[in-house]
């Protein structure tokens, strides 16, 4: 799976499942402040990531992930 595909899947579930407006999905968007993703949402993101990418992530491992582009990087690193 290449980076473009990863980004497409992530953006798709952020829009479809977390109901975030698509035009807010910019690389520099802050997950908490701009996209309003809270600690409970991170629990659901772990479930969604597992189902889409077949990798386990832990919400506590995402403490350093602040922006959307960092999230893409994190998922890409986990897949590899």
């Amino acid at each position, binding site marked *: 799976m290449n980076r473009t595909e990863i980004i497409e899947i992530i953006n798709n579930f952020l829009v479809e*499942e*977390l*109901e975030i407006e698509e035009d807010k999905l910019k690389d520099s968007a802050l997950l908490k402040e701009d996209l309003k993703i809270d600690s*409970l*949402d991170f*629990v*659901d993101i*772990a*479930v969604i990531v*597992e189902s889409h990418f077949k990798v*386990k992530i*832990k*919400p506590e491992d995402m403490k350093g992930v602040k922006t959307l582009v960092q999230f893409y990087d994190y998922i890409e690193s986990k897949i590899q």
Partner: protein
Amino acid sequence: MFTLYFTKKTIEYCHKMKRAVITGMGIYSCLGKNLEEVRQSLYLGKSGIGIDPERTAYGYRSPLTGIVERPALKGLLDRRSRICLAEEGEYAYMATAEALRNAGIDADYLERNEVGVLYGNDSSARAVIEAHTRTLETKDTTLLGSGAIFQSMNSTVTMNLSTIFKLKGINMTISAACASGSHAIGLGLMFIRQGCQDMIICGGAQEVNYLAMGNFDAISAFSTRTEDPTRASRPFDRDRDGLVPSGGAATVILEEYEHAVKRGAPILAEVIGYGFSSNGANISQPSDLGSYIAMERALKDAALTPADIDYVNAHATSTQQGDAFEADALNQLFGECRTPVSSTKSMTGHECWMAGSSEIVYSNLMMLNDFIAPNINFENPDEHSKNLNIIPVTTEKRIKTYLSNSFGFGGTNSALVVRNIEK
């Protein structure tokens, strides 16, 4: 017979307390998804009972149930609210939204004022069992997601309603088996009388799914009259063979009288009496004495006598024992007065944790529209019900004051007296 002693001083004190009126109602049940649909069903004596094939496949003795469609909440509630709501919470949301609307309460009011919630609920089985099944499959609790915990707790309804509607007053769930919804209103009455709250959302909710009722089916409590589901629930009838489980949610907005007048709110009814008791006996078997005490206490709390009651909405669920004990208790109190009695469970089935609230909504609809809804399927009395004035067909009648009974496992009993202050 056990007698309650209320001194003159006690009664005077009670009557100096604040009054609690109902300024809004909402209902979501097998009789309809709003007040108007339910009013029509009650008037027509329409049953909401059917067959659930999933129950047969799961191993139920009886597949009979109230048929309640789950509401579509996308577009009404945001994602976070939706994923934290268990099935019974969805019903409670629908009933509460309707009740707040017709009480004239909007989001701005709720933001600026202290409104409480006291709601009856005594299970959230589907959420618990589905989470357990998922964990068995995955061996990983993190895959349950964030909503499971908030759906699984017994207080799921009140924790969700208080979050969705931004409630800032008293906030708790009442778990008292099949009397939960009635006690919730009774306790709301006490909070308002004492001046602790001006407005409380009171009600009861009940999930309707095959995972929730299997252990109830296990004790052979359910009717097996599957050849004609609409005739299966037959409270007080000689040939009854058990209850039919059902559910949904019902909400009343309980408000302090002066507060309601000042607000210009529609005053639908006044709750004037709450009586309670515990049988202190068998876990499943009801008691004529226990129900008598609850009713007598409610009447004394309202400073009324049995002759003042125009209608009794009976608890009667269509079980042999329960209906017989209630019939005996009703006969002791209301036999001489020939007070009209019906059990709306003949149409709804037994709405369990919700029933004590839904039957207040049903009775209020009757009182506001001058009719008594029928005890359908009452064809032949037995030796206990033969002395009661059971209403088998819709009857036009002006109701000024009624009494509603609710009893539950463990011997918990509740009775409420409600009057129409416009008449």
